[in-house]
C-alpha cells in the first residue's frame, strides 16, 4: 500500500492529468447535449496538453529563454547548462496541439450551428428521433 502511495506522490502530475482526461472522455461519450460533448472534447485535449507540458519540468530550472543573451557578442563566452532551463520541446509541440484543438473546436461549433438551424434542437436523443422519423 505504501509503495502505491509513494508511486502516486512521485508521479502525481501524470495521475492528475489522466484523471482529467478520463473526465473529458466520459463527457464526450455519455452526455446527451452536443455542446456538453464539445466541452468534454476540449477538456480531453487540454488534459493531454497539460500532460505533455508537465513532463518538461526540471526542479530548480527556469523558463527556456537564455539569460543575458541579448547582449550580442558576449553570448559565446557564457556556458549554458542544460539543467538550468526546462525542456523547450514539449512546449513547442503543445503550441501546435493547442492551435489544432482551437481549430477543431471552431469547426465543431460551425457544425453545431448548422445542426441547430436545421433541427432546432441540440439534444442527441431528440435528433435521433427526428432522423428515424424521416
Amino acid at each position: 500500500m505504501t509503495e502505491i502511495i509513494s508511486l502516486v506522490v512521485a508521479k502525481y502530475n501524470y495521475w492528475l492529468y489522466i484523471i482529467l482526461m478520463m473526465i473529458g472522455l466520459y463527457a464526450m461519450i455519455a452526455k446527451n447535449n452536443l455542446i456538453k460533448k464539445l466541452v468534454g472534447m476540449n477538456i480531453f485535449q487540454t488534459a493531454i496538453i497539460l500532460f505533455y507540458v508537465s513532463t518538461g519540468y526540471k526542479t530548480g530550472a527556469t523558463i527556456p529563454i537564455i539569460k543575458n543573451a541579448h547582449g550580442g557578442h558576449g553570448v559565446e563566452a557564457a556556458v549554458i547548462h542544460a539543467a538550468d532551463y526546462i525542456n523547450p520541446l514539449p512546449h513547442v509541440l503543445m503550441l501546435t496541439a493547442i492551435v489544432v484543438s482551437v481549430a477543431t473546436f471552431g469547426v465543431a461549433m460551425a457544425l453545431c450551428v448548422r445542426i441547430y438551424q436545421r433541427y432546432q434542437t441540440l439534444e442527441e436523443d431528440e435528433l435521433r428521433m427526428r432522423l428515424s422519423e424521416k
Partner: protein
Amino acid sequence: MNNYPAILIIAPLLGAFFAGLAVWIQERLAYPIALISLGLSTFASVNVLMAVIANGPVHYRMAGWAPPMGIEYRIDLLNAMVLVLVSSIAFLNLLASYKNVEQETHDRAASFYVAYLLFVVGLLGVVATGDLFNLYVLIEITSLTSYTLVALGDRDRGPLASLNYLFVGVIGASFYLLGVGYIYIITGSLNMVDVAGILPDLPGSSTVLVGFILCLLGVWIKMALFPLHVWLPNGYTYAPTAFSRVVAPLMTKVMVYVMIRLMITVFGLDYVFVKLHLSEAVVWLGTIAIVFGGVMALSQKNLKKMLTYIIICEIGYMVGGAWLGNELGMTGAILHIVNDALMTFALFLAVGNIVYKIKDVDYPNLSGLFGKMPWTMAGFVLAAFSIIGVPPTCGFFSKWYLILGAFEAGAYHFAAALLISSLICAVLFFKVFEICFFAPEGNGHSHDHSHGHGDQVIVMDEAPVASLVTLAIVSLALILVGVYSGTIVNTIILPFLR
C-alpha cells in the same frame, strides 16, 4: 533534381493558398490552379519513385537540420508507391469531378477546391514524413478538411454525420498524440528511425507497450476497423460526390500505411510479433471485420451505403493480413493497399456518375441503368469483378497472397473469411446488376429524358465525358496492375520487406 520530395507537397500547398486568394479575387481561377498543382505533385512523386527504385531511400531534410534535431522526409519504396497512388488518384478525381462540384456546391465551388487541395496535402504529408509528431499534425489537417467537406454534402444529414465523425476522429487523433507522448517521454526523440534505434534498449517497458497500443488504437479508429467503424458509413454516404470519390479510396488506406510503417520501421517486427502476443487477437478482429462488413452490406438498400460497408470489409483484409506475421501476409496487405484504392476509386467514380444523373441511389431507383448509362455500368461491373476477386483484375492477386499467407500462418479462420467474403460480394453485386439490368415495368417513374408512352424506350443519358474517360483510365489500371502485380511485388514490396 533533389528537391522533388519537397515539391510534391509544396505544389498543392501553394496551390491551395493561391486558390484561396482566387476565391476573393477571381473565382474561376481556382479550378485551373488546383489542376496544375496536383499535376505537378503527381509528376514529382513519379520522379521520386524512379529515384528510390534506382538509388535507395531518399532523405530530405526540412530547414537543413539533421535529424533528430529537425524534421526529415524519409521516402523508401513503400512510401514512394503510396505517394504515387495518392497524388494520381487525387489528380484524376479532380479531372473527373468538375461537373459534380458545380452541381452540388455551386455557390462555393472555389472554396471547395481549396479545402480539397489541403486534404490532399495532408494525405501526401502523412505518407512522406519520417517524424512522429509531424505525422500527427498532418493527420489533423486531413481530418479537419474532411470534417468540413463531409458536411457540405446532404443538406439534412451532412452536418450531423460530420459531427459524429468529428467526435470519433478527435478521440482517435488524441489517442495517437498520447501514444507519441509516451514514446517521446521514454525515448527522448521524435524521429522514427531514431526512436527505432533507442527502443531495443528498453525491453519489457510498460510505457512502450502502452504507447504502441495507444498509437495503434488511434490509427485503427481513423481507418474504421471494426468495432471502431461507426463513423464511416454515415460519413461517406452523406458527403458530396467529388469528395467521397477521393476520401473513400485514400484515407483509410493511408492509415493502413501508417500502421504498417509503425509496425515495421518504428517498433520493429521483432517487438510486434515476438514480444507482444496480440497478433492472434488482431487476426480474429480482422476476420470479424470482414464478416461484419459483408453481412451489413447485404442488408443495405442504398448503393452508396453498401459500398461503405465493403470498405470496412476490405480494411479487415489489410489489418488481418498485416498481422499474420509472415512475409506473404504482409505482401498481400501492402499490395492490397494499391489494389483496394484503385477498386474503390473505380466504384465511387461509377456511383458518382449515377448520382449526377439520378440524385438518389436507393435500390428501387436503379432500374434500367444498363441501358441508360452503359459505359458507367461497364466500369462498375469491372470494379465489382475486381472486388469479388476474378483474375486478371488486381483484386484476385492480393487475395491470393493473403490466402497463401493465412495458410502458412495457420490462420484458417482468416482464409475462410476471405473466401466467404468473395461469395458475399458476388451475391451482393449480382443483386445490384439484376436490378440495374431490367427496365422498370409500367410507366416511366425513373426516366427524366425518355419518351416512353407504353413500351419503354430507354435513351442513353450518360455522365459527363471527363468522368467517363477517367473511369476508363482507372479500369485499364485495374487490369494492368493485376497483370503486372508480379513486377510490383518483386521490384517494390519484397525489396522493402527485406
